[in-house]
């Protein structure tokens, strides 16, 4: 057999055998659609990602479903934010799925919020402070710098369970970081005019965004995390908002309710509904798109509510 014919045969055999050796995509389960999007961005076609939580839900109150259990039982990598954000449904599912690959401490378990410098870490664990999280505010996915942090942890997890694909994951991660650089520059430009402005939030979800943008959170409609507002508390908020003209009221998709609308009606302050997760509202299908949406909508609300400039002092005797 001549050399060219041998090479041709070998190539044909390789082409035929290729699919036999092609690896199945890595099965990943992510709690939040935000984590699913970041994982898909890094994993590309090498991963299939199942999401447990819908973008419109409150991640503290997700109802476990049969598909969650099935997906976790088959998963090779599990990604959560951690910081007790998903403590209402993740521990029970992990216990019941009986998948040793994704149990806490196993290579396939990723707590993507680990290592994040959290706000609101309680000095004392006491339920008088409401449904607080011992590790601090867990809403890392709403921090402008959160995507970068979560992506780094996800990359480490993917490389751990699938080291053969590490170069590919790293390449995609680097591309994601470039997109994040551009996005963060956009958000920074939008937020440049927000410094000193005030918000009232429903739940303490947007604290990282506020801290990064120079916004001040006057208060929250929930008097404490997870605690229903009382009439007295709403009255107090009304007084606070009136004392700070230009304040914007912020609710998430799940909390756009009568309490928020009542406060808006009583104060005249604009009420803006923001996504709290990817796919929470139309046009928020990726994490970057969601944060673009959050910044743009908040910017529009802050502009519409901008307090009237103070009138220049009248000339003496004028």
């Amino acid at each position, binding site marked *: 057999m001549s050399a060219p014919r041998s090479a041709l045969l070998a190539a044909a055999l390789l082409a035929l055998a290729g699919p036999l050796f092609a690896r199945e995509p890595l099965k990943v389960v992510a709690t939040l659609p935000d984590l699913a999007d970041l994982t898909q961005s890094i994993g590309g076609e090498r991963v299939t990602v199942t999401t447990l939580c819908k973008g*419109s839900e409150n991640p503290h109150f*997700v109802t476990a479903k049969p598909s969650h*259990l099935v997906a976790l039982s088959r998963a090779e990598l599990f990604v959560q934010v951690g910081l007790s954000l998903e403590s209402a449904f993740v521990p029970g599912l992990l216990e*019941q799925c*009986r998948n040793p690959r994704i149990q806490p401490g196993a290579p396939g378990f990723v707590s993507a919020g680990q290592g994040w410098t959290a706000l609101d870490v309680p000095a004392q664990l006491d339920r008088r402070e409401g*449904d607080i999280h011992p590790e601090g505010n867990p809403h890392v996915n709403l921090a402008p710098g959160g995507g970068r942090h979560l992506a780094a942890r996800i990359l480490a997890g993917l490389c751990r369970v699938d080291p053969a694909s590490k170069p590919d994951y790293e390449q995609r991660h680097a591309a994601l970081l470039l997109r994040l650089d551009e996005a963060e520059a956009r958000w920074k430009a939008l937020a440049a005019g927000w410094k000193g402005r005030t918000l009232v939030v429903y739940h303490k979800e947007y604290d990282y965004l506020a801290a990064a943008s120079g916004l001040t959170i006057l208060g929250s409609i929930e008097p404490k995390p997870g605690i229903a507002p009382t009439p007295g508390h709403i009255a107090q908020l009304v007084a606070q908002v009136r004392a700070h003209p230009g304040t914007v009221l912020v609710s998430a998709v*799940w909390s756009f*309710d009568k309490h928020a609308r009542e406060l808006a009606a009583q104060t005249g302050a604009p009420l803006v509904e923001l996504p709290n997760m990817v796919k929470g509202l139309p046009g928020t299908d990726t994490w970057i798109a969601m944060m673009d949406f959050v910044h743009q909508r908040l910017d529009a609300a802050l502009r519409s509510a901008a307090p009237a400039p103070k009138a220049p002092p009248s000339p003496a005797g004028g």
Partner: protein
Amino acid sequence: MARSRTALLVLLALLAAPARAGAAQDSPFRTPGMPRAPQPAANPDAHQDPSQTSRFDSSFNPAFSFVVDTALDHTSTDGGAEDGFDARLRVLEFSAQAWVDPTAWAYFSAAADEDVVEIEEAAIHYTGLGGTSTLRAGRFFNDFGKQMQTHVHELRTLERPLVLRTYLGDELAGDGLQWDAWAASGDATVVRWSLGAFRSLLGESEDEDLPAAVVAERKDAEDMHLTARLTGFTEVGAAGVLQAGLSLRAAPDYAFTYAPSGDTVEGLENTVFGLDLTYGWNDASGLTRWTLGGELLQIRGDVGADVTDVGGDGDPTNDTLAIVDDDRSGWLAFADYALDARTNVGAQYSAVELLDGAGSRAGELELYYTLQFSEFHRLRFVASSYESDLDDDSLRFAIQYTALVGAHGHGVNW
């Protein structure tokens, strides 16, 4: 001086040796044949964590919790015998649970009402069989239907539904062994099954004037009381979950005894069959939810015992038992609506053929409104109406206030 200092050091070292042993979980000294407690690590000073090497502290403390469940109610009856207000501690439940090794965890749950403290559950779950299997041993609530597995303070209404109370008792806890496992069917369906064998699954009567079911302590294998359950749940559309289940509780050998006369009838058996169906739906936020469900039960065999007043003399000491060997059926249905994360309203109705010889009937309707102040305490308003061929009809209004403290949870209600 040097010699005396050395002697002092030797003496201190000798004294320190038993003191060190005393710090371990074992005793300072051992007598022949004394049970051996877990030994401390070879070099206890190698780590700072005393863990289980001390009798008095442990970094491996289990999760503790307690529940306070109180109620204030007013009842009015047709006969007027038990009318009026009452306020009471319904239950104080104390629980602890912890993993004991990578494959097993253990827990207990003790409940105290005004009069008695009772171990409701104390069991070990072993998961080392592989797959999704769990072996459970000890005392625990049995796997029958949806609402029998639930502790009283976690029910959606004040009381366990009438049909369950009548055929299975207020609680169906047993001392025994259970195996369960689950399997996926497709991507969104789970099927789960369980089999259990127990010493006794018959409720104990606290009223000495009523016939009491009695079970022999030692028995043949075929006389062990059994439970079995097969359930499947699947997703219906994007926001719904449907669950269906079949349950069985078999008591193949027991006796009825009547304390005032001492009359006893042995060699009795009965079986309870159950069918349950539950549908849950939630909106996009996951906070507004509908839950609809029902359970249908049938009890067959020697279902009860009537007391026959021999000679009509009113003297209970010569009364005899007449066993009711028949079939009886009952059902419950409920609708629960969660307006948001904190508020539920709902209704539950249960109808039952009672276990007397005449096949009397009873029904109970409960309406409730539950306000969850936070994850850890709730207030519930309940109105219930009870109608019975045997007892006085009654109307009850109740306010239930419940607080959960600590790491509380009773596992998955399959």
